[in-house]
């Protein structure tokens, strides 16, 4: 179906009339759950092949943002999304086939979800949904994705054990491998390192740096230092507002527009 990797980068033709400059453009996005406002008038743009960090305390609306981008609002009763989200220039609220959108966006949620099938089938699920049947092709994809997610060495001898029986950290890496198996155009990680030990976190971070060549990454994290290590630019969210978007290093060296950002990254918050 859709090729991955370097080939996708080169596509420079056939741009639609309303040529959008960014991979992901969010305009005036407001998300409500009933009467509760989770996100209020957020504007931001994520460029192709950057790692875009989102930091902020709990209840900042970070997860709601990811759900809206992936059109998960369809599943969440009471969730109402206003404003515009453009992915590759397309308004995601006006698509004939949201499944196609989701299949191009990989999401890693905070708590690991090993689906109740074998490790191999977990990773092969998305390629199979895309119609890849050849065992040889699937083997290659499974090995590549598991290797990238820093899990291959630990599970290569038990690919046919249940994925839901792996340890928490392993399941999280399995989740990442599954997201990678989608060959996503955009990879969204929501506090992926919660259930992973520091060494593995570092290995995954290295992988993310490499992946930047191929996919755009949206990294929600509650570890500000992780954002500093990885993100090219970073947005600071607070209580449903996007307080500031800037080059990550600027935020950490004090070149901020808003004092609250400085307080947060320096840990003087609250």
């Amino acid at each position, binding site marked *: 179906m859709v090729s991955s990797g370097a080939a996708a980068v080169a596509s420079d033709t056939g741009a639609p009339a309303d*040529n*959008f400059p960014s991979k992901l453009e969010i305009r005036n996005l407001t998300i409500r759950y009933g009467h509760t406002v989770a996100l209020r008038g957020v*504007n931001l743009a994520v*460029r192709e092949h950057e790692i875009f960090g989102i930091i902020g305390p709990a209840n900042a609306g970070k997860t709601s943002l990811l759900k809206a981008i992936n059109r998960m609002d369809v599943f969440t009763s009471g969730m109402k999304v206003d404003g515009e989200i453009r992915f590759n220039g*397309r308004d995601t609220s006006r*698509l004939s086939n949201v499944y196609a959108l989701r299949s191009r966006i990989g999401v890693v949620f905070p708590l690991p979800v090993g689906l109740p099938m074998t490790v191999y089938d977990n990773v092969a699920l998305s390629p199979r949904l895309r119609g890849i049947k050849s065992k040889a092709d699937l083997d290659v994809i499974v090995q590549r994705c598991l290797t990238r997610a820093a899990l291959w060495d630990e599970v290569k001898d038990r690919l046919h054990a249940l994925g839901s029986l792996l340890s928490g950290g392993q399941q999280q890496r399995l989740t990442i491998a599954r997201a990678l198996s989608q060959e996503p155009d955009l990879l969204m990680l929501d506090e992926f390192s919660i259930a992973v030990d520091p060494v593995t976190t570092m290995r995954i971070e290295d992988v993310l740096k490499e992946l930047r060549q191929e996919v755009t990454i949206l990294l929600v994290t509650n570890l500000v230092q992780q954002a500093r290590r990885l993100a090219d630019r970073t947005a600071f969210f607070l209580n449903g507002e996007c307080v500031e978007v800037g080059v990550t290093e600027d935020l950490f060296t004090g070149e901020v527009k808003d004092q609250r950002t400085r307080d947060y990254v320096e840990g003087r918050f609250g």
Partner: protein
Amino acid sequence: MGTSTQALSNRATDARVTEDFDRRDFDWYVDKLVAGLVFVCGISAILFVLGIFFFVTKEGIGFVFEKMDFREFFLTPYWSPSDAEDPEYGILALMAGTASVTGLAMLVAVPFSLGAAIFIAEFASGKTREVLKVLVELLAAIPSVVWGFIGLVIMNPLLIKWFDIPVGLCVLNAGIILGLMAAPIMTSIAEDALKAVPDRYREAAEAMGATRWQVIYKVVLPAAKNGLLGGVLLGVGRGFGETMAVLMATGHAVNIPNSVFDSVRALTATIAAELGEAVVGGEHYQVLFTIGIFLFLVTFIINLSADLIVRGIRKG
């Protein structure tokens, strides 16, 4: 923030990616088709229920509007529909029969099935657990006429011998039989509810030094209360609607019971016993269907209140 994005601007849009977002492929249509099919199945369930309600109402409604005296119907205990001169249609005694038998059955079944469920889910392990589960499910499959037979042939003489009463077909007999009958299914549902409580809750409580019973009482039971309540109400529904066993074990005598040793007659058993001999379309026939409407409404109210209670719990 929008101003600093020119560097990458022209390569950002990958046309091949966005094309897919508008193409409704085979999988998309399969999805719609399946959604349509399950919708039809879901709707047809509702249609069947409405159809049954419509039929029962159609047969009984003539009596309700033309001849029925609500006071006589609900508040007098005289049931003599075959009296040619002056038939009487008071269902108070029948309601008392159903209520007393169902109530006693729940007194037997609730503690019994809850205890069994707690044992299977929390204490038993390995083989014991598996064997017990299979046995309980086997018990649930025993036909009600067999239970009625046990009531008639085994319980009846036993009760006469133990309590020195003239007839052993009574509220006690039917209540025990009905309780034993409802217990397996209630156990099965309660056990599912307990098993659905995640082990991490138990571990968190056990790690604080709570005893096994404290864990069950303070953590597991509250977490499972929706399912447990669902099981109990299903049992009530079962007892309320049960016909054959009740017909055989109650003694089938129109009577407001003074003690558990009195014979009674249940609403359902009355319909089953008399519908065959009532003239189709006649008054007696219509009255029996009126009882059917009443049963239908009460079942509906039980289920509805169960649903509301469970929702209320969920909110709290």
